[in-house]
């Protein structure tokens, strides 16, 4: 029996807009085992960040359940939620906007400790902050520095230290390395893998960068326009992508090699608007293998081989 830390069941998040109901996340279900990294990939506007925020209830979900250790996060009241927030934290994409420019490194990292009132004395508080700085590899002399004095990589380390302050079990990593230069990106990715190993953390790693996701994830979920289209083991997904969108996505990644030539599947057009989506498969309009059934009926996510889930009518044959 696998030890499921997080179970997401039929999660929905709709936003009211002037033009109608925006289906940011539409009936998405998945679970994450303890100590595992689930990669969530998709293009902008596919709802991957919204999932991360809905799990933490930074956005109130419209429907569905989010179970952390069997407790339904969506049903908690303010007090219970506040306590549960110690268990799950988030690291944001943009290390420039995710830190308050008026707070020093010390204050930023220590803030969750102050909010949750976990430290008994000032000394303990200071010790905890220095310990966290050491954990993420920030030099002690930076303790009084302000975010604008730090480069992107160090800021992101501050963001990670802040997320770790309350000893969470589960971290949502929302594009944590997308804004960083490649050499710094590698440093931060290594740090996150090290932390996972040392602390037994569980990650939901959200990114649009497939090579990064592949590197860090155990399993990968592909999103398209608010729906999950494919979920599989990392190796499996890259070796044998089944959904036409996954195939196109994988083939579109530019490969920094001259000896590999991929057969590129070029998609026509743009991602349609998630406002009042048409019935049927969301990808139907851009799919080369679209059938009559695809525009009429929404495909469900089903298991085509152990651990490999696909939502496509093509697999039913």
């Amino acid at each position: 029996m696998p030890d499921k830390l997080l179970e997401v069941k039929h999660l929905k998040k709709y936003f009211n807009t002037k033009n109608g109901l925006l289906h940011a996340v539409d009936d998405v279900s998945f679970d994450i085992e303890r100590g595992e990294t689930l990669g969530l990939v998709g293009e902008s506007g596919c709802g991957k960040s919204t999932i991360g925020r809905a799990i933490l209830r930074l956005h109130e979900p419209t429907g569905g359940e989010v179970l952390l250790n069997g407790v339904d996060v969506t049903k908690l009241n303010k007090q219970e939620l506040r306590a549960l927030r110690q268990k799950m934290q988030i690291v944001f994409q943009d290390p420039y906007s995710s830190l308050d420019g008026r707070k020093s490194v010390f204050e930023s990292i220590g803030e969750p400790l102050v909010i949750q009132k976990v430290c008994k004395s000032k000394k303990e508080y200071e010790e905890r902050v220095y310990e966290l700085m050491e954990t993420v590899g920030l030099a002690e002399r930076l303790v009084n520095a302000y975010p604008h004095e730090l480069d992107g990589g160090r800021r992101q380390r501050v963001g990670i230290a802040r997320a770790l302050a309350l000893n969470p079990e589960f971290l949502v990593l929302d594009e944590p390395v997308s804004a960083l230069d490649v050499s710094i990106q590698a440093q931060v990715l290594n740090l996150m893998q090290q932390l996972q190993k040392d602390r037994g953390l569980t990650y939901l790693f959200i990114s649009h960068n497939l090579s990064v996701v592949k590197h860090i994830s155990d399993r990968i979920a592909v999103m398209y326009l608010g729906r999950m289209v494919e979920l599989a083991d990392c190796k499996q997904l890259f070796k044998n992508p089944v959904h036409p969108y996954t195939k196109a996505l994988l083939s579109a990644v530019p490969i920094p090699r001259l000896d590999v030539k991929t057969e590129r599947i070029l998609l026509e057009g743009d991602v349609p608007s998630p406002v009042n989506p048409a019935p049927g498969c969301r990808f139907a309009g851009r799919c080369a293998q679209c059938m009559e059934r695809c525009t009429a009926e929404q495909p469900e996510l089903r298991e085509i081989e152990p651990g490999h889930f696909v939502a496509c009518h093509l697999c039913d044959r």
Partner: protein
Amino acid sequence: MSAISTKPNVPKKHSKLQETWRRFSKNGRAVVGLCIVIMLVLCAVLAPIISPYEPNAQDPRNRLQGPSADHWFGTDELGRDILSRIIYGARISMSVGLIAICISLIGGVTLGAIAGYYGGTIDNIIMRCMDVLLSIPTILLNISIVAALGSGLQNVMIAIGVSSIPGYCRIVRASILSLRDQDFVEASRAAGANDFFLITRHILPNCLAPLIVQATLKIGAAILSCASMSFLGLGIVPPTAEWGSMLSTGRDFLRDAPHVCIFPGLAIMAAVFSMNLVGDGLRDALDPKLKD
């Protein structure tokens, strides 16, 4: 780990206040401004000791005298010493300026923060009320408020304070709308912070800059508003020395005895100018991005 007990690399930590003062004191113009403000405040506090004459002592023989050794700033139409009146006037003018601004700051920031942070219906209600206030000419609004509350210095301050609430309210609301969805606010919420914590610790400190500028500019306007209220007979009762009313009575003698107007005018200018300098210095000193 011994890393905690021995921190050789950590620069000595100063408190927020020390840090701000250190940066403020490096700013020459701000320090000059602060000196003038302190001087004016001292004048107000020590008025009975330092003023050479009684502010209301009339001397009909020496009316509208120009500046001389006896009367440094000259005398007014009733032969009162202008220097003494300016010194005593500092008490009223400075306190009107500061208190009125405090009233409008507290009101404006609270309402603006609520409107901006919660949005929706409450935002609509607050902002429409502000629009109504803005659509009434300030002087008319002041008169109506004083008329309703009764005349007197205290009520004038309230009237001036209330009538400038909408300006602050709009500034705060606009800043909050842009800050509300920033990731650092979300991060703090994800750590379990409540709304009060978010607004006071993260959002308000980040919209300080436009507020300070607005507040320091408005001090001068408040002093002048108070003068015009006095002129209409709704504020300070005539014999009391007050810069604004000195300015408006002096207007009648502008051609023959300009000094009656010039000196109170200079006093108001000095107050506004120094407050502005202090305000700008404070804004820069509070912003870590402009450090050093």
